[in-house]
């Protein structure tokens, strides 16, 4: 799945065709996170900081093992902890690695107005290009997973890159490399999907997790990061994983129909006043003004006010 060059499939804020769209057959990559074998060691968090050379920031203690409440512009990979009390009164410590989901239909990219600030490669990775980012934060509004984060100093937005720099060199992302339990996997989407389904079946049939399943939400046409959950009917338990994520409808409406309505209205308005001028011409001065307006409207005695216009 290594790519000598990255073919681009979609570009944010881009007028015209997209180079690379539909040109080359390419594997779609996928990260699989098996929450049932995660032990919450946070090796992936550290590996992410190390590989990406991110600056260290304050951690927040909130009566749990969790490093901070949510991912930050310089902290792209966060294990979310939830002490879930089951109906029978027993506790279940749920741990989910939170990061960009690399959506097939990325709300961030759809919302972004800046040409080339967000690209989606043919292999499915959604990557921010900070040199083209204008810091408007539209991506923050577009993302259904609360992932893009604004850096007040850089005034740009940052998030997980799925280690695109490693993947192009045939390496797996740094978090995968660091995981000691093998709960993280990396491969092509069909491979990972099959592995995940296999594991979910195992959990349902052998381990008593009747609701075990795979999280690959169809609302964003699938993601390039997928989860195995003990209880796929309740993804919210896992640190607020949305049950049925979509690009927010107001964002789709704003970037879709409203754009067309607005464009037609604006162009229509301009053509309208132009047509009005051709048909009716200017209103003229009343006849009590002295100077006749040369070449004025034929229907009425036309005059022009004196001295006002050169």
């Amino acid at each position, binding site marked *: 799945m290594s790519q000598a060059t990255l073919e681009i499939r979609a570009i944010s804020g881009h007028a015209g065709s997209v180079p690379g769209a539909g040109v080359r057959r390419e594997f779609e990559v996928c990260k699989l996170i098996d929450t049932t074998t995660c032990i919450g060691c946070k090796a992936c968090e550290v590996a992410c900081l190390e590989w990406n050379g991110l600056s260290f920031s304050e951690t927040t203690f909130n009566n749990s093992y969790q490093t901070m409440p949510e991912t930050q512009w310089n902290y792209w990979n966060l294990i979310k902890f939830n002490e879930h009390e089951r109906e029978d009164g027993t506790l279940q410590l749920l741990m989910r690695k939170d990061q960009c989901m690399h959506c097939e239909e990325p709300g961030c990219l759809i919302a972004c107005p800046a040409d080339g600030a967000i690209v989606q490669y043919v292999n499915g990775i959604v990557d921010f290009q900070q040199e083209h980012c204008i810091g408007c934060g539209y991506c923050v509004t577009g993302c259904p997973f609360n992932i893009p984060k604004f850096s007040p100093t850089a005034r740009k937005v940052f998030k997980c890159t799925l280690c695109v720099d490693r993947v192009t060199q045939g390496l797996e992302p740094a978090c995968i490399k660091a995981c000691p339990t093998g709960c993280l996997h990396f491969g092509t989407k069909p491979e990972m999907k099959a592995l995940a389904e296999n594991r979910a079946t195992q959990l349902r049939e052998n381990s008593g997790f009747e609701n075990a399943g795979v999280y690959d939400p169809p609302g964003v046409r699938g993601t390039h990061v997928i989860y195995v959950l003990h209880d796929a009917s309740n993804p919210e338990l896992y640190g607020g994983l949305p049950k049925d994520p979509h690009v927010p409808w107001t964002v789709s409406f704003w970037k879709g129909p409203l754009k067309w309505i607005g464009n037609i209205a604006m162009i229509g308005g301009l053509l309208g006043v132009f047509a009005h001028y051709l048909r009716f011409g200017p209103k003229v001065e009343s006849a009590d003004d002295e100077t006749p307006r040369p070449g004025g409207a034929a229907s009425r005695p036309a005059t*022009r006010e004196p001295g006002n216009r050169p």
Partner: protein
Amino acid sequence: MSSTPLLANGRVLRYSFRERLVHWLAGFSYVYLLLTGLAFWSPWLFWIAVVLGGPTVSRELHPWVGLIFVFATFLMYGMWGGQMHETEPDKEFWRALGHYVRNEDELVPSAGRFNAGQKLLFWGFFWCGILLLLSGLVLWFTHLIPWGLRYVRYTAVLVHATCALLTIGLFIIHVYMGTAMERGAIGSVIRGDVSVGWAKRYHRVWYEHLLRDAAARK
């Protein structure tokens, strides 16, 4: 005090220096907002932001200029708000709109200082200005809004774009009327005066008021 409402040049003062200044403060700031806003509205217009000093600059300045625009709008409210209430002749104006559009102005009721269309323009810009400010502040500080309040963000993008479109509609008509249609109107916001003929034709009630006031002053 003289018994004539005319200026020394034989014309009628329509807008004071202060009114003209505020008008252009609003006008220039609005055009900047319009151009930079349109750049982010459509990828096909993104080049506008490039021309205006780069997209990052446009993104940084748009909200600040927005504050100037809203400031000018509030000044206008202070100056003109009291003169913008709808009157009986205004309702008749809307009924006679077809005549006005076809330039059959003799069939349209005479207007006071502001006609019904100008009042609509004023209130449209005033209320849209407030909504643009509120939604614009959300867009400005998008990253400070917690995830739990994300609906505020979702609403703001729609409100901002919709109100911008509404003002653009008003703006197109306003500029068309002020430059191409009512010859002489543009002078009223530049040098401030209009001809007697212009005053009678477009704002007869206002002009007659000026005459009466001048006569009373005698």
